[in-house]
C-alpha cells in the first residue's frame, strides 16, 4: 500500500486549511527564521564560538538560565498552589482572582517592568519594607527573578488548572479508602497525575522567561557579569553594529527555545501514550 501523507477523510477543507497554515507559518515564521539561521551559518565556527562563549556572554547565560530557572520553579510551586486553591476551594473573590491570572499576558512588558521597579525599588511600596529585612530586590539578580516570575505566572496556573479540574476525584477517594492519609495521597496519586502539566507549565514559563526583555531591563540593574540578561546583550551587540555577534547569541537562544519546546511536546506525547484511558 502507498505511504499516504494523510488518511482520507470525508471532512472537507484539508487542502485549504493545511495549505494556508503552512503558507502563513512559512511566510511569517519559517522563512525569517531560516534566513536568520543561514545568516548565522555564514559566520566561521571560530567567530561563532567566540561570540557565544565570551565570558560576559556566558555570565549572562548563567543569569538568564539561572534566574529563569528560579522564576519557573517559583511559578511551579506557587502556580500549583494557586491552581489548587482556585480549583478546590471556595472563597470570597475567587472568580476575580482567577481572572487576574491572565494579567501578565495582557500587560505590556515595559509597563510591567516600570510597575515592578516602582514597587520593589528600595523607595517603593514593597521595597522599603524588604529593605528593612535586608532584602534588596530592584537592581539585583533577585529583581530579575521577580520580573521573570511575573511574566511566567500564567503558564503553570493555566496548564495545571484544567488538569486538576478533570482529575478524577475517585482516584483520591480510592487512595483514602486504601488507608492513605492526605499527604500520601498528594505525593503518590495527585502529584504524579499533575506532573506532565506541571512540567509543561514549568517549561513554558522557563522558555518565556529566557527570552524576556522589556520588563527585566527596568528592574535588573544591567551590570555586566552580574545583572545583565542575554537578550540585553543581544540588543547591545546589535547596537554596536555587531549583527553577527547578536545573531550568534540569538541563535543560541533560539535553539534553547526550540529544544525546550521539543521537550514539552515529547513529554506530552509520552504521557498521552502511557496514561491513555
Amino acid at each position, binding site marked *: 500500500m502507498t505511504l499516504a501523507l494523510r488518511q482520507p477523510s470525508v471532512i472537507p477543507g484539508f487542502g485549504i486549511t493545511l495549505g494556508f497554515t503552512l503558507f502563513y507559518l512559512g511566510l511569517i515564521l519559517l522563512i525569517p527564521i531560516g534566513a536568520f539561521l543561514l545568516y548565522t551559518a555564514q559566520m566561521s565556527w571560530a567567530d561563532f564560538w567566540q561570540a557565544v562563549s565570551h565570558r560576559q556572554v556566558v555570565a549572562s547565560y548563567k543569569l538568564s538560565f539561572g534566574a529563569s530557572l528560579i522564576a519557573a520553579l517559583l511559578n511551579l510551586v506557587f502556580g500549583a498552589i494557586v491552581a489548587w486553591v482556585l480549583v478546590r476551594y471556595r472563597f470570597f473573590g475567587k472568580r476575580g482572582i482567577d481572572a487576574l491570572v491572565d494579567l501578565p499576558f495582557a500587560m505590556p512588558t515595559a509597563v510591567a517592568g516600570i510597575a515592578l521597579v516602582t514597587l520593589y525599588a*528600595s523607595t517603593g511600596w514593597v521595597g522599603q519594607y524588604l529593605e528593612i529585612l535586608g532584602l534588596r530586590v530592584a537592581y539585583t539578580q533577585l529583581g530579575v527573578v521577580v520580573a521573570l516570575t511575573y511574566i511566567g505566572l500564567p503558564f503553570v496556573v493555566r496548564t495545571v488548572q484544567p488538569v486538576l479540574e478533570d482529575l478524577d476525584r475517585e482516584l483520591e477517594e480510592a487512595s483514602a479508602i486504601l488507608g492513605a492519609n492526605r499527604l500520601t495521597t498528594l505525593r503518590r496519586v495527585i502529584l504524579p497525575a499533575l506532573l506532565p502539566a506541571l512540567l509543561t507549565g514549568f517549561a513554558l514559563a522557563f522558555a518565556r522567561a529566557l527570552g524576556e526583555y522589556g520588563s527585566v*531591563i527596568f528592574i535588573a540593574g*544591567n*551590570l*555586566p557579569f552580574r545583572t545583565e540578561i542575554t537578550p540585553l546583550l543581544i540588543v*547591545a551587540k546589535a*547596537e554596536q553594529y555587531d549583527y553577527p555577534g547578536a545573531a550568534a547569541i540569538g541563535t543560541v537562544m533560539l535553539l534553547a527555545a526550540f529544544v525546550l519546546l521539543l521537550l514539552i511536546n515529547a513529554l506530552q506525547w509520552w504521557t498521552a501514550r502511557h496514561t491513555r484511558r
Partner: protein
Amino acid sequence: QQAVTLLNVSYDPTREFYREYNNAFAAHWEAETGQRVTVRMSHGGSGSQARSVIDGLDADVVTLALAYDVDALHDRAQLIPEDWQTRLPQNSSPYTSTIVLLVRAGNPKNIRDWDDLVRKDVQVITPNPKTSGGARWNYLAAWGYALEKYGDEAKAYEFVRDIYANVPVLDPAARGATNTFVQRRIGDVFIAWENEAFLSVEQLGRGQYEIVVPSVSILAEPPVTVVDRNVDRKGTREPAQAYLEFLYGETAQRLAGKHYYRPSNPGILAEFSDRFPEVKLHTVDDWFGGWRNAQDTHFNDGGVFDRILAEIH
C-alpha cells in the same frame, strides 16, 4: 510649493530642544521660501538610532550624541561621505555640552571633583558606554581627567576602573540612568551631560539636586548631518540642509542655550554665562585622537572597557 516633510533622527536628551526648534525652523522656512515644512522626530539611544538609520530608517538628517555614531552611517552603509564632519562649522556641532556631576541636595557625600568618584563610599550612576552614546562621553571625561592628572595610561585605567566599580546600576541609555538616580534614588552622584543635569534639577526636583562642575571635563560635541543618500532619493536636500544650517543661526543658538546646551556662537554663549561656568574642556581629538580611535581602543569588544568590566566582576 509642495509641503515637505523631514525626518530628524536624534537621541534622547534633545527632545525638548528640537520641539521648539522645529517650529522656529518651519516658520523661518515658510517665510523664506513659502514652503511648508513638517519635521518628524525620532528619539532613542544614540547608537540604536544610528543603527536604525543604517538599517533603513528614512532619516533626512541625524542629530546624534557623538561623531562615532554618525561615522557609522558612512562606514556601514555609505549613506554619507567620509568627510561629513567638515561640511558644517564647528565639527558639525552647532551646540555642545560637557560632562558634569549631579549630586543630591546639600551634597551629602561632599563630592567636588572626579577624584571623589573613586571613593569606596560613593555610588556612581552612569549608563553603559557600550550601548549609550552619552555614557561614552562620561567615560572619556573621567579617563581624560585621570590622564591629565597622572599623565599615565595605566593610572587612568585604574582610575576609571575604580569609578565603574562603584556603579550599582548600568542602564542601557542615558534617560534610564537619570530615572534611576532621580526616581529610584539610587546612587550618590550621577555623571551626566550638563544639559541633562540642568533638566533634572529643573524638571524633576528643584532644590533636590546640585550640579558639581569638575575641574576638568570633556567638550561633548553632538554632531549633525544630512543623510545624503536619503535626501537625494527623496529630493529633500535643500530643506534638510537649511534645517541644519539654521541651527547655527541666532534663534537656534538661543534655543540651545535655553535648553542647557552650550551655544557654539560665542556671543550667545556669553548671554548664558551665569548658567555655564568656565571649565577646562578638552575635545575627544585632544585626548584620544578622534572618535574612531577612542571607540577602537575603549569600547569595541575586547577593548579597555571590557577589560575593566572583566576585572571588576
